């Protein structure tokens, strides 16, 4: 079976799973874990957009 993901969708899937593991392993209480996981996810996806814009501006 072959999976074809675009760069963006691969980055979002990566961010999702990495954030789940970071949330569980880096914080103690459930609330803290959820908050940290969401924060990590937002940072990952935000980083993707930021890097995308930086590369687009450099290319111009």
């Amino acid at each position, binding site marked *: *079976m*072959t*999976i*074809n*993901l675009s*760069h963006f969708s*691969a980055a979002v*899937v*990566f961010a999702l*799973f*990495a954030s*789940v*593991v*970071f949330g*569980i*392993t880096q914080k*103690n*209480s459930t609330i803290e874990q959820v908050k940290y996981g969401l924060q990590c996810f937002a940072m990952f996806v935000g980083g993707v957009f930021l890097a995308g814009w930086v590369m687009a501006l450099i290319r111009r």
Partner: protein
Amino acid sequence: MAKPTTDKTIDRAADKSRNAAAVTEPEYPLTTMAVVAPLVGWLIPGGGHILLKRYGRGILLLVSVVAMFLIGLGMQGRIYKPNGGDILDILGFVGDVGSGAFYLLARIMDWGNVMAANAAADYGKTFLIVAGLLNFIAAADAHHIALGKKP
């Protein structure tokens, strides 16, 4: 000339040592579970947490690591073999080994033995390495839970 030792200086020294004792971390004795849990966690992602009765966390870790590993294989990612060559190849092998039983299964079944030169395969290779590295973090977390450092 030596300074005379007063009661005040003795009290201050005693206070200092008492504060130092309060600041030092409590000791966490190494138990059998603190050794077994990370090993099980490495072999089966999330297994250490499940062994320690953290079922929810264990299942989430299992799903996350296995999903990343399978997506990596699906994207034609390459599985590194033990090697003594380029430093990046060695690190790639270390990352891949983190997936434990899934790495061994992939080697036995000869999965990921591809040399596809496209972007998706490169992402797949990264997914496989990161799945292993995340599993190492999960195993370390299981060790901390077993020691009592983390609830």
